[in-house]
């Protein structure tokens, strides 16, 4: 058995699972104190379906803690930003275009140093070890505890980042270091930004994982702990402590993966209706389709792969004005739905009240909405369905029929038939799809490199990249026979003679259960 937990802004959902079968699911309000919220969720699971803590093989948690820490610029480490590559790139120094508040929270310790490589692996300039020792001296004087090191074209050649880290650690043994080639892809500023965010989150990662481990300990669970990352795979505690930034956007990913598994559909359009918004994404081959635009995190541009999600301001708490042309949202009562919605004794007409009045769901006191005009209620339901269906249709990738899967607590707003979709699936446990997504996540490895030179054969390049991605998946804890390549992306580099090509390969596999922490 294993447990999946989703710590959201409003609710903490938890599920007890036997492989992909849900044994018990609970929903609790999220608490300010991390540990007690998790303990509460685990206690509720055990109350609903008693289990021996020793029988739990793994616990997977999806959390927005790290995203929130950056958005709120809270608890971040004083972080040195070291770039290797002079004289190149000096015109765009690190932290360019960062929000001032975040820049100040990190201390604005920027160092431009020699080093870096060309696209084909030649050095831009040699690494200057004395220069780095001087940086270390400066960091010691300023009491800086984290460092982000980014070398130009380190996805092609990482040796300078590794050597620089070695030098800094020799001078400053307690320094926490993040290296850009382990974090991001080609694209200096975006990779550097992600590396800096990662380095600044290292102490937060330590605290949060300790809090999670403490909660498991108190519940008597001695199973490995995993956290969800943005690509729908899991990472272990050691990995989170090194790469906390990889947790970003795990929420929508988990809900889509959960929907796919609950419905048994590896290709579908997932509609997740929450309290304020409806998010729509596409699942292709069991994984969310990634967005291709650059992603802003707290105002900082990164090149993470995030799921392609479109949203509309319709949710269970959306305010409603009835009439010939009803107005639904985007204003929402949000988490105050249990006080403000009419069926719960409040005075605000919400989308949930309409669902109750229309007979879609039994909640609260239906007599409180019995007076509403039937025709107007039906018209309102129709408009909600049409708007969500139009959004969902825009996410389709072909005219081929594709099923729609409805998840999230607010999905009771929607009918069983949606215009343009011939199959609408409302799986069991739809309200806790993201906790289930966390529970069933796989582990993976990704490679993103530029290969150049006339002598390289395409097949050899892909084979080499695939082997490296598989190896990374195995290191992440995948069972060897389950690892498969889920994505190969080749991008020829434009405006160049020769055949330089950028290759991205992703491998995933099932997690080994029964390991020890």
């Amino acid at each position, binding site marked *: 058995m294993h447990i999946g937990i989703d710590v959201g802004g409003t609710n903490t959902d938890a599920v007890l699972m036997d492989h992909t079968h849900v044994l018990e699911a609970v929903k609790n309000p999220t608490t300010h104190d991390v540990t007690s919220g998790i303990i509460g969720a685990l206690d509720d699971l055990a109350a609903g379906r008693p289990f021996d803590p020793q029988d739990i093989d793994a616990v997977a948690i999806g959390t927005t803690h790290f995203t929130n820490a950056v958005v709120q610029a809270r608890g971040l480490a004083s972080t040195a930003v070291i770039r290797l590559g002079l*004289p190149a790139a000096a015109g765009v120094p690190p932290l360019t275009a960062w929000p001032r508040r975040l820049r100040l929270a990190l201390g604005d310790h920027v160092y431009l140093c020699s080093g870096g490589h060309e696209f084909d692996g030649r050095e831009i300039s040699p690494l200057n070890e004395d220069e780095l020792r001087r940086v270390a001296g400066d960091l010691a004087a300023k009491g800086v505890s984290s460092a982000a090191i980014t070398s130009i074209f380190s996805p092609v050649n990482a040796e300078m980042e590794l050597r620089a880290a070695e030098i800094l650690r020799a001078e400053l043994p307690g320094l926490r270091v993040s290296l850009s080639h382990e974090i991001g892809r080609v694209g200096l500023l975006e990779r550097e930004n992600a590396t800096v965010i990662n380095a600044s989150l290292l102490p937060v990662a330590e605290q949060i994982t300790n809090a999670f481990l403490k909660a498991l300990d108190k519940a008597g669970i001695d199973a490995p702990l995993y956290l969800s990352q943005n690509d729908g795979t899991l990472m272990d505690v050691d990995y989170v402590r090194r790469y906390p930034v990889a947790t970003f956007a795990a929420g929508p990913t988990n809900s889509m993966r959960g929907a796919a598994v609950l419905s048994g559909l590896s290709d579908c359009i997932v509609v997740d209706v929450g309290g304020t918004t409806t998010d729509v994404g596409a699942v292709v081959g069991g994984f969310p389709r990634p967005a291709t635009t650059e992603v802003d995190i707290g105002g900082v541009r990164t090149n993470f792969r995030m799921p392609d999600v479109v949203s509309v301001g319709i949710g269970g708490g959306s305010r409603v004005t009835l009439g010939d042309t009803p107005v639904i949202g985007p204003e929402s009562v949000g988490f105050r739905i249990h006080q403000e919605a009419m069926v719960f004794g409040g005075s605000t007409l919400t989308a949930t009240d309409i669902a109750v009045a229309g007979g879609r769901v039994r909640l609260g006191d239906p007599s409180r909405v019995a007076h509403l005009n039937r025709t107007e209620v039906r018209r309102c339901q129709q408009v909600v369905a049409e708007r969500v269906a139009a959004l969902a249709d825009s996410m389709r990738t072909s005219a081929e029929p594709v099923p729609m899967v409805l998840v999230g607590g607010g999905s009771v707003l929607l009918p069983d038939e949606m215009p343009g979709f011939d199959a609408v699936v409302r799986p069991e446990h739809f309200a806790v799809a993201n906790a289930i997504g966390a529970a069933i996540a796989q582990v993976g490895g990704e490679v993103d490199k530029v290969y150049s030179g006339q002598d390289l054969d395409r097949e050899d390049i892909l084979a080499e990249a695939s082997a490296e991605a598989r190896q990374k998946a195995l290191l992440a804890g995948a069972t060897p026979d389950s690892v498969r390549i889920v994505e190969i992306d080749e991008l020829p580099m434009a405006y160049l003679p020769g055949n330089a090509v950028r290759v991205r390969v992703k491998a995933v596999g099932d997690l080994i259960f029964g390991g020890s922490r």
Partner: protein
Amino acid sequence: MNMIESRDVRDIARGAAILGAGGGGDPHVGRLLAENMIDRYGPVTTVALEDVPDDAFVVPVAIMGAPTVIVEKPPSGDELARALYAVEAVAGRKVTHVACLEAGGLNSMTPIIAAATSGLPLIDGDGMGRAFPELQMVLATLDGIAATPMAMVDEKGNTVALETIDNPWAERLARSATVDMGCSASIALYPMTGPQARRALVPDTLSQALWIGATITRCRDEHRDVARTLAAELGGSVLFTGKVADVVRQTSGGFARGSARLDGIGADSGSRMVLSFQNEHLVADRDGEVVASVPDLICVLDADTGEPVTTEAMRYGFRVVVLALPCHPRWRTAEGLALVGPAYFGYDHPYVPVVPSER
């Protein structure tokens, strides 16, 4: 426009990405660099093309190389000014005005950087009115203006000065040197006199980019259709709205060639458009009929946001609007089409000029 300040750069970059017709490289890193240089050295003075004096010595600048490399290895900032000084040294004449070679994409930003760092005024105009993949594809070539003396500079401090027998040779030799410089070189070329510049540059393209960028922002705020607004104002036409159903790419001769198939949505349901590209979009074919082609600009915009979508970023499932904008009239002449028409890029159909949509 008589000045470019830091706050103008974002809109110019956004508009330039539209003028890039899918190519020209993402202006983002150039934008940051241009903003930094204006913050450091002050705003850039701009000069209308018609106001360039006869005794001017005008030198356009650009960055040549792979956009993928430029986003990983941005310039140090002073390369473009050094390229200008290298041309001065060879020509034996002081540069009086900086010009833009290519208003589409990243190279809309490079002359701003050059002007800010050198303190020289910048001409509001450019060499082609869009983005093109090769150095000789400028109006100056039609006027017999030589690309050389030309200078190429890298961030390491190397300078290459070129004197060539014709412009295709300049393209060829420069491209080889660019690879050795690490696939990115700052270049200054096509030195011109005032009268030559007034004839061989497309006027007002930087202010046009600024207007397009501001219009995208304004349309989004006002929930107006970006593509239709641009088409109406710029004499273009909205060709198609669809979802990317397939993208095929191959590299040959250093260019990312390929095609994208779009399946129509909304009013275009049931129709299909195929876009052929070589860094830039070159031909738009609707249900087997060519509806737009190079040298007109075929621009692809995100259907929801109106943001430009580059050929590199085109992916299966994208929802896009295809917009055609007219090229400079000189590209529509027989000699213009011989240099940059469909035949030059290997297509056997005749050039189909874009028909402005009714306002």
